């Protein structure tokens, strides 16, 4: 589904990604971990070209999205993204946050989009917040609505960029529960996270990125119980 070939990213002389090759298949839940500054978020953001790679290619559904001839906006419609800081639109109500993109892009009529949004809000138990503004919600509620906003586009894959890192500890659970549910329903996802327990539970594959390359890739059980790479062993001994 997503094929990454020799992905490189350089920020003004700083080589963040040093050639990453990886293939993500439909239904997989790829969890990416690594020390801060390792390039794991940059890797994720290169998948939908929020960061422009300086080398290599990203293929999505058989289309080379790094080729400027292809319309990235069309591709992004099928790739939902959830950010660390939620990035809800503060000047719109919750309902408008969710319906704005599908309606504006003429994927759904306003009535359809609203019905869909209410269904999604009901699912996360926040339907009574439909007409509230984001700043009146808790962090956990904001992030769940941000997830719903991405889901409203009916994406084929969801990218999570440290979805719980900016949350108060007591709100982490509700967000992880929602992601867990989506995983069970078969959604393809790539998750950058520091929640090791969650990584182990939800991931079908876990990647360890360090110094801009994938240092280790394995099933969660092997990854956490028998780490091969020295840097990974050190990293795990610090965080577990």
């Amino acid at each position, binding site marked *: 589904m997503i094929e990454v070939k020799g992905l490189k990213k350089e920020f003004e002389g700083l080589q963040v990604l040093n050639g990453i090759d990886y293939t993500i298949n439909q239904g997989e839940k790829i969890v990416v971990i690594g020390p801060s500054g390792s390039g794991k978020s940059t890797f994720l953001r290169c998948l*939908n070209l*929020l960061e*422009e790679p300086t080398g290599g290619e990203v293929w999505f559904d058989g289309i080379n999205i790094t080729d*400027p*001839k292809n319309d990235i*906006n*069309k*591709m*992004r*419609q099928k*790739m*939902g*993204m959830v*950010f660390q*800081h939620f*990035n*809800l*639109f*503060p*000047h719109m109500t919750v309902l408008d946050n969710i319906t*704005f*993109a599908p309606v*504006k*892009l003429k994927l759904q009529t306003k009535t359809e989009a609203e019905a869909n949004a209410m269904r999604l809000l009901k699912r996360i138990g926040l339907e009574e917040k439909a007409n*509230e*503004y*984001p*700043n*009146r919600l808790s962090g956990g509620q904001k992030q769940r609505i*941000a997830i719903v*906003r*991405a889901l409203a*586009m009916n994406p084929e894959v969801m990218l999570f960029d440290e979805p719980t890192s900016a949350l108060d500890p007591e709100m982490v659970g509700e967000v992880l529960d929602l992601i867990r549910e989506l995983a069970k329903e078969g959604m393809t996802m790539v998750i950058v996270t520091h929640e090791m327990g969650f990584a182990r539970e939800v991931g079908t594959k876990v990647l360890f990125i360090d110094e801009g390359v994938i240092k280790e890739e394995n099933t969660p059980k092997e990854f956490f119980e028998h780490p091969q790479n020295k840097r990974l062993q050190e990293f795990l001994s610090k965080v577990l």
Partner: protein
Amino acid sequence: MGWIESLTAEFEKTFIRDDRYKVFVTGFKNTILITIVALLVGLLGGTLIAMFRYGFTQMKKKKAITLPAKLLYAVFWVIDKVLALYVAVMRGVPLVVQLLIMAFVVMAGFPNKLVVCCIAMGLNSAAYVSEVVRGGINAVDAGQMEAGRSLGLSAAVTILYIILPQAFKSALPALCNEGIAVLKETSVVGYIAVVDLTRASDLVRSRTMSPLMPLLFIAVVYFACVMLLSWGVSILERRLKQGDRG
């Protein structure tokens, strides 16, 4: 003669005799007209300039590989530089000088000097507004652009519907300042013989030879207009804050 009598006499001389109040009425109308038109031109033009210049910063030079894309980039680059120069000139040359250039060089022979004033002041205001709006845009969290783009929205749609409404909100106090500045700066249009409030007071003063009443009067009128404007903006600000503490 007591002070009440002298004041009444001054009033009669300044406003009543020869229907002089009509000069003030004309002046007031023109001041308001020029302010409103100049502000509308300024807001519209300034916002367009700011949007274009911000949009250009979002354009990626390296992505322009094909010839049409390269050409488009080059054209946009030139426009961006022209706009930067425009803003610099408009801010760097005194408004009176710009007004005179507009009236006697660029639009020389154009019969309606009121229109000349509106254009000159509108173009000048656009430069200031563009910088104010640009500041507002820069104050919007970069994550907003990313969120919009990640949903598949184009840069233009994201700027228009996501970034600009938030930018305006934070730019509102500065925009209010700009409105006040334009209102007061209309007082220079007398230089090209347009009768605004200030010019009206000059005309009356030169007849009555007594400066206090006409000058004090227009000072009060300007002040009242500015108060009214800032009051209106503060109401708008309060309404925009509702339900949204961000």
